């Protein structure tokens, strides 16, 4: 079968069917409108597209605000690593609980599941560790606030979940070093007080008898010995603590030098209110609808032709019957 004949049989023999499906596809393309999923309150739906019969002209425009964050991960060496980081972050920012928290934080009353499914987008920028978060709303200010709240929530969540053993260890070391510092400070105070008290010892009485002088000397010697013992003990403890502090600080420095501490997640570019609404995708959907209708029409027509073939044209009819074509009547014959 020639291509020409095939086209004539499929398109020419089933024009009405193909046209009907093309029109149907066009209608679908006009009816489906992405981006108008932000039905609020009782009209809330979880679908990112909805059929727009009726009230389509009154649908308000949508605004998208974007923010950029970097997470506490090592720099990716390939796009696959970047995509993996983005997948992790996406799983967090599209969790309804996190979205609900962000919505509550900025005071927006919308269905968290719908927003999470349709209006929060996260994508990596190339193969870098930088992620771009987009939030969409009918109001540009609220869109920016939502994007920033989602980014903050992402960072907090990452800090909570990715704080590993090394970070915890360093934190513990810091706590112990601070406690040692406090203890050493106490000891220094005690030493100073002891020295001061020893210098301020009471003078001997005015009894210069040999017996009295001897007793005073003995008492002073005893106090001096006691003070010296206390001072020695305090200094020994202080020395021990100082040694322990030095050891802890060395251990902390070693951990930091080994790179066990990941970079700090942070927002590198906060969202600002967008100046214009998002472009509509109506033309794309119309084109897709047309293409879909045409494909379906041609496909069904081809199937019908396979099941019940048609002979189209004088020549094809003569060939099918093995007879010459005598001519064509110059008028149309109608059935009874």
């Amino acid at each position, binding site marked *: 079968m020639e291509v020409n004949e095939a086209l004539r049989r499929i398109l*020419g*023999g*089933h*024009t*009405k*069917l193909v046209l*009907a499906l093309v029109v149907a596809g066009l209608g679908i393309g006009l009816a489906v409108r992405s981006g108008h999923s932000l039905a609020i309150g009782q009209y809330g739906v979880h679908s990112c597209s909805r059929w727009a019969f009726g009230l389509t002209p009154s649908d308000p425009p949508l605004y998208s605000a974007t923010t950029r964050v970097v997470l506490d991960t090592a720099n990716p060496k390939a796009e696959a690593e970047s995509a993996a980081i983005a997948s992790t972050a996406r799983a967090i920012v599209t969790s309804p609980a996190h979205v609900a928290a962000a919505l509550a934080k900025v005071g927006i009353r919308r269905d968290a599941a719908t927003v999470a499914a349709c209006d929060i987008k996260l994508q990596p920028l190339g193969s870098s560790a930088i992620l771009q978060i987009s939030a969409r709303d009918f109001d540009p200010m609220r869109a920016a606030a939502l994007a920033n709240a989602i980014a903050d929530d992402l960072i907090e969540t990452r800090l909570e979940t990715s704080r590993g053993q090394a970070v915890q260890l360093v934190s513990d070391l810091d706590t112990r070093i601070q406690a040692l510092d406090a203890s050493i400070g106490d000891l220094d105070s005690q030493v100073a007080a002891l020295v001061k008290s020893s210098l301020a010892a009471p003078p001997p009485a005015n009894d210069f008898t040999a017996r009295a002088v001897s007793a005073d000397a003995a008492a002073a010697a005893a106090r001096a010995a006691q003070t010296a013992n206390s001072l020695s003990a305090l200094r020994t403890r202080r020395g021990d603590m100082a040694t322990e502090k030095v050891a802890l600080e060395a251990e902390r420095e070693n951990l930091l030098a080994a790179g066990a501490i990941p970079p700090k997640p942070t927002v590198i570019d906060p969202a600002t209110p967008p100046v214009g609404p998002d472009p509509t995708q109506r033309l794309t959907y119309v084109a897709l609808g047309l293409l879909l209708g045409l494909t379906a029409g041609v496909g069904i027509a081809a199937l*019908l032709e396979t099941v*019940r*073939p*048609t*002979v*189209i*044209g*004088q020549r094809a*009819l*003569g060939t*099918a*019957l*093995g*007879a*010459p*074509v*005598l*001519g*064509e*009547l*110059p*008028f*149309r*014959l*109608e*059935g*009874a």
Partner: protein
Amino acid sequence: MSRESLDLAVLASHLRLAAEAAQVQTVELVAVDRSVDLLPVAERLQRLMNNAESPGSPEVPGARSVLVRPLMMRPPAAANGHSGPAGIVLVAPSTVKKADLVPVSDLIGITGWPLLGVITYRSAPFWRRGFLGRRLSPGSQPDRANPMTQRSEVSEEIVALAGTRDRAYRSEA
């Protein structure tokens, strides 16, 4: 002469040539769409072939008259003396389902009459046809509730024509 008359005259001349080449005296018009009335077409072609539609045209000396008529079940007495060999001409729209040609092939095979040729006519515009290519006018729709209305009618006609052929063979013998 109008364009329509001219086209029809050319068609009639082709039909006459085909009939003479096949040496038949009767041309039986068979329509694929059985609801089409072929009698007016047959009459006009008959007149044109016998130069009756153009009074100024001279009669061709020695030319045999050819009977053109729609194929229908008729008693032998209705043949009006034409007992000569017959040929079939199919009258079909330019777009036809292949399955609709099967009864015609059956008819040709059973009668043994030669198929002289095909005359086409323009199909109805697609907006006047049914959704899947069938006309939706009540008269053209076969009675689905009664399966005897289509194939059985053709079968009866085939049986009657076979009897006519047998009688013609017997008379020649």
